[in-house]
């Protein structure tokens, strides 16, 4: 017996998914776990994240978490991605604890994206 299962922030991010989409010439990762399908794409310049986009199939908390992540990390140094923690975003969005598994899928995707950035900047073609 409680109120709204979605915090105002979840509702905001869910409705205004301005980072939904793809990016040309981006590095991207996709994960498909826990009934969640995710794809993150990003571009970087000089070690900074330039743009982030996501695509997601999942519950409102997953979608809101993706949007929140993209919104927050654009413009930040690539290495900061490794500090992304599911727990932080869950607290921020008041995600119920039983959805931890789903948000960990996002954490995994973010971690992979960080590694992909490093790989791509290390490679001669970048």
């Amino acid at each position: 017996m409680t109120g709204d299962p979605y915090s105002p922030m979840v509702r905001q991010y869910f409705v205004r998914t301005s980072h939904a989409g793809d990016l040309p010439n981006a590095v991207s990762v996709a994960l498909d776990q826990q009934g969640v399908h995710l794809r993150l794409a990003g571009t970087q310049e000089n070690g900074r994240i330039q743009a982030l986009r996501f695509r997601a199939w999942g519950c409102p908390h997953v979608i809101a978490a993706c949007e929140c992540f993209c919104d927050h990390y654009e413009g930040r140094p690539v290495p900061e991605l490794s500090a992304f923690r599911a727990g932080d975003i869950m607290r921020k969005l008041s995600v119920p604890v039983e959805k931890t598994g789903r948000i960990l899928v996002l954490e995994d995707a973010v971690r992979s994206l960080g590694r992909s950035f490093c790989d791509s900047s290390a490679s001669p073609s970048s």
Partner: protein
Amino acid sequence: MSDDFIYLDYAASTPVDPRVTRLMLECHESGFANPSSNHVAGRKSRAMIDNAAAQLAALLNVDPETLIWTSGATESDNLAIAGAARHRAHRGKHLVTLMTEHKAVTDVFGMLEKEGFEVTWLTPDESGHLDPAVFAAALRADTQLASIMYVNNETGVMQDIASLGGICREHGVLFHVDAAQAVGKIAIDLQALPVDLLSLTGHKFYGPKGIGALYVADRPDCHIEPILFGGGQQRQIRPGTLPADLIAGLGLAADIAASCLEADFAHLAALRRTLWRGIRDVEGVLINGDIDAGFPGILNVSVANVEGESLLLELEPLCVATGSACNSTNQEPSYVLRALGRSDLLAQSAIRFSLGRPTSESEVEFAARRYRDGVARLRDLAPEAAA
């Protein structure tokens, strides 16, 4: 009906008819005494209850004496099923029901299994119907009770109660019908239907919440044991001070329903046609249940490649349900839709639109648009890989 939402969840609960509210208000003033009390004030309450019993009895075409007041269909289901099974336990301990019954039925049978009864759980076909031949085959010499719902609360599927009841009569099996979603919505003539026990609840047909009834046929052999014990009210079958205001409200709701059963039905059928027309072209959409038969107040649709919880949020300000209202705080895929053969994913994407007397054409048009847009946006958000 409200500024901040559009209510399309009439199968979960209906608003109280303003006339019913008004009558209950009057009861608060002049029918507040305990109807068991043997004085003027008590007799006034008793007269209201008698009047309500006559109204509900008229809707069902039964003798008022056959009606037991309860707190709702959950209690009626419990009283009917546990009460009849225990009463007849010395004759046999086999019981029959359907996988797609409401929890207020399935959980009672589950409890009876623990008490030592044997329950046969029948599966409906893909459209949700129970084949009478399948039903007949399940009855045995030691079968004492069968319970099959009239209108399914998730899908609107209607069972062939006349045939099923006829089979029960042939086999000497008591027949209970959970009619929570049927009473006040479709014509039910219990003189004609071979039904022994029938559950109903006020809040599904514009009556008050917290009040229901159980019909117990006045036939030899149709007896039940009480599950509550106390002051001897209602011929020792269901004790407790009778809430005259709630009962009067239920009676009036029955009276109103009787007078507009056909109009309501036609209204709902038209609304459902409009709604379905508005969403049937969405790719991958499919009906859970049976659009051609079935109660027209309910349209339950699943859709491929869309996540159910997000779809529900996307549909706001529509108030609609995913599974049954009673299940809607947990995220399990509906056991009713699983029994119809839906995958977990399809079951989880199910949306139940349920329409009511106050629903308008423009509301269902808005709902259909919202559904189309919502599905489109969520598909847009998803990576192509998502199945």
